[in-house]
């Protein structure tokens, strides 16, 4: 290469390219950002020296010569074309993939969740490690050089070679996040999208530091900021979509045994997670639910009219809290529809009791959730399930308890006269039949919460046993003096007491005959 025919452009460029390329080939330093050990999330900018100091001073000398000779543009060009593959492969090693928006749309959400997780780690390393280091390298080589990169007098920033080298990779990196931000809004996506939003928001100051200095790099920062904003919109949209989905959840077949509906579990788990994410969500959710109080239930005449979202003091309450309460209101409304599917009204009430109790229980269990929803509303919920319990008792037991009434049994006006034996026998038969029916049916009903189950049984027993005891006490001798008393007095008070423990077990009563002959 020591030809004395002036061939400066070729020679200089070759030298520069050769120098940079050979260093690239054996610089293991530049791979260190991609190594496994560096995968732990970078919390802040960590520039590393991509090339050894000697090489950098050589390159700086070469670049100075080229710039001084007026070959600044070629120098920048070669630099960018050599660094670009290095940056691309660094990103590849970090696991950044070349996925189009179409590719992302086609992937299952589970797959995407994993990719988002990896992307967050990779993006932190890419921005704070790879890009920051590249910028530093560019600075070391070009910062004091007279570079003119355009035909006018516009001063080029010394970041231009860096921006050239890195722009494609940066766009590709953020392209994935952008593709996620424009996907369909379905409730399952909420929390991962919040994660992604938070990761980008966290990176934005560093992106700004690194890119916003040059005109070419500025568009990267702008795009990253746009993506964050779109993700915020997506979060709001998904929350809305979730609320709609709860409202519209179809009620087709009643859940057997009146137990907790899967929708209730899903919604309450979701709400718990929402409260876990309340830091970000409080910032992003700035308006109250828009859909409340104007939606008529669709085609379900049995559902009660839609309640207004009656909230205490709108000004002091977080919009997020309003949304959470709204979610529960909507859930309850939907549960009313589901309750109406039961033919047995008592089971409807039991169903409501179970589900509202579960809601209240989940709220009480989670300090964040309880803090957001407030004790006032929690009290309302508690009142509701107690009311449902009362309604259940009335509906299920009134008829049975009426068998044990005094009225209608006495023949003439006074007490001392006779009791209608036939009426009495009918009463006993009616009671037995009704109780057996209740026992058979309601043993298959289920109250999942142990404490609630016990309370309900105790409450039933408290009404049933004294009534039966007193009825027996007053009238048994009439039957016992007649024929076949065992047909009418089938149960002792103890028998009833034991039978009540079968209720709400969720399975039919054991075939073991619990009836004991009296006496």
């Amino acid at each position: 290469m020591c030809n004395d025919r002036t061939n400066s452009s070729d020679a200089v460029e070759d030298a520069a390219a050769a120098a940079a390329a050979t260093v690239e080939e054996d610089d293991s330093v530049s791979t260190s950002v991609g190594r496994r050990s560096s995968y732990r999330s970078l919390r802040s900018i960590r520039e590393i020296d991509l090339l050894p100091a000697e090489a950098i001073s050589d390159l700086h000398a070469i670049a100075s010569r080229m710039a001084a000779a007026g070959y600044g543009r070629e120098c920048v060009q070669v630099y960018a074309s050599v660094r670009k593959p290095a940056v691309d492969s660094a990103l590849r090693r970090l696991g950044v993939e070349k996925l189009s928006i179409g590719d992302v749309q086609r992937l299952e959400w589970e797959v995407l969740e994993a990719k988002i997780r990896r992307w967050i780690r990779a993006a932190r390393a890419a921005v704070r490690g790879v890009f920051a280091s590249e910028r530093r390298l560019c600075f070391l080589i070009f910062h004091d050089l007279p570079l003119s990169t355009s035909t006018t007098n516009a001063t080029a920033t010394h970041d231009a070679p860096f921006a050239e080298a890195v722009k494609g990779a940066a766009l590709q990196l953020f392209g994935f996040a952008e593709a996620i931000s424009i996907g369909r809004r379905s409730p399952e996506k909420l929390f991962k999208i919040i994660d992604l939003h938070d990761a980008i928001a966290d990176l934005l100051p560093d992106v700004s530091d690194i890119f916003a200095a040059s005109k070419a790099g500025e568009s990267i920062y702008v795009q990253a900021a746009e993506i964050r904003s779109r993700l915020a919109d997506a979060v709001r949209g998904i929350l809305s979509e979730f609320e709609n989905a709860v409202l519209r959840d179809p009620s087709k077949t009643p859940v057997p045994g009146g137990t907790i509906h899967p929708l209730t579990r899903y919604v309450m788990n979701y709400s718990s997670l929402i409260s876990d994410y309340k830091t970000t969500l409080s910032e992003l959710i700035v308006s109250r639910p828009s859909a409340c109080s104007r939606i008529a239930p669709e085609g379900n005449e049995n559902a009660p009219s839609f309640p207004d979202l009656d909230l205490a003091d709108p000004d002091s309450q977080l919009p997020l809290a309003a949304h959470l309460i709204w979610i529960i209101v909507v859930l309850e409304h939907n549960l009313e529809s589901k309750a109406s599917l039961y033919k047995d009204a008592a089971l409807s009430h039991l169903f409501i009791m179970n589900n509202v109790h579960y809601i209240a229980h989940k709220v009480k269990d989670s300090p964040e959730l309880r803090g957001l929803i407030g004790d006032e509303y929690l009290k309302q919920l508690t009142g509701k399930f107690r009311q449902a319990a009362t309604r259940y008792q009335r509906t299920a037991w009134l008829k049975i308890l009426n068998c044990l009434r005094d009225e209608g049994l006495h023949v003439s006006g006074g007490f001392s006269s006779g009791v209608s034996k036939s009426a009495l026998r009918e009463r006993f038969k009616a009671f037995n039949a009704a109780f057996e029916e209740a026992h058979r049916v309601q043993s298959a009903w289920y109250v999942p919460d142990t404490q609630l189950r016990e309370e309900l049984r105790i409450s039933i027993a408290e009404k049933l046993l004294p009534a039966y005891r007193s009825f027996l006490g007053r009238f048994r001798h009439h039957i016992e003096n007649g024929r076949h008393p065992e047909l009418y007095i089938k149960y002792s008070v103890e028998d009833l007491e034991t039978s009540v423990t079968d209720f709400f077990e969720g399975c039919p009563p054991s075939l073991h005959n619990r009836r004991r002959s009296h006496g």
Partner: protein
Amino acid sequence: MPATDSSSAATSVGRSFLSLRRDHHNHIPSDPHHSNSSDLHEIDAFQRHAADLLNDLVLSVSDSDSDDPFLSLAWTRRLLDSFLICLEEFRAILLGLGLAGGDLARPPLDRLLHDFLDRAVKVLDLCNALRDGLDLIRQCRKHLVIAAAALSSSSDSAAPRGEAQIRRARKALTDLTILMLDDKDVSGGGQRNRSFGRATRDSSASHGHGHHRRSSSGGSSGSGSGSHLRSLSWSVSRTWSASRQLQAIGGGLTVPRAHDVAATGGLASAVYTMGAVLFAVAWALVAAIPCQDRGLQAHLATVPRSFPWAAPLTTLFDRILDESKKKDRKHSCGLLKEIHQIERCSRQLIEVTDTAEFPLPDDKDAEVQEATQELLQVCDSLKDGLDPLERQVREMFHRVVRTRTEILDYLSRPHNATG
């Protein structure tokens, strides 16, 4: 910048003809489930407006007179403007209907809208690919700037260009030619070319550099920089194809059945119109701007003449296809006028500097100077045109996303929620 200001005599004839149809509509009492006359009027106006915009784009006067000749950067910006205007009107019609209590989610409208949205999402990847293409043109410009700087930077402007200057300019121009090679040769060959480039560099380094080496072909003088240039490759995956994308956008876009048009109060025609415009604009952009696997085979099923925009749409396709078949444009990496200028100028300058005599004789030098001037002009026209176009492509991206999100929201909202 609105593109319709220049619509005048040429299009008013079309307008008055079509207005005859409008007066036929009777007044139907307002009912959210049936279109009333003002809805139909809007839909009609939308289609006519689309026709006007397309007409303005294709009925351009001869190239030398106009500010924005066909397929120039300025024209392409007008194309995008027209698209954005149509999209906005389409969106306004749909949202207006939604606000008035109409139900977008009722079949068959929901199916038609979902179909449109699927096509729209495919345009997004195209917008990203076009950004790469515009970047490629920017890179090309940089080579031109180097060549122009080499040839105009004479300390003594009276003296003819020296050998170093010529060599430097030729190198930049040959690199440029490699860059603009039709990408069909490159896609999938990124790795291969890189090693090819290295081998070339090594071999040419061992041969030394003599002034006898004349770079007539592109590759051998690359001295390795060919490989570096090729590494400025597309950011899409190797299997991505603009041609396939176009086929997905326009494929299966069928004329709405009369039954559907009636059932949707005419909206089916609006959706069809927007789909056709979407496809046409995407297709024209792919034709103009370099992108991976640029193929123009995709086409729309024939549009019935009853649609006012049918004729100008067909004309648009025809004119672009004609351009693509011209001898000197067939292998171009993009049909943009400015790309053609780049190709011509660089080819001319390479020819003019293909000489063994240094210093250059006066007549040759004059030729070189003239060619350099042209080169500078091309550089200038590119400088101001690329950034705005890139911003517009990005704007197209944003608006498509926004419209899609809004329509999806509407479609998933509970029935008869009044806004």
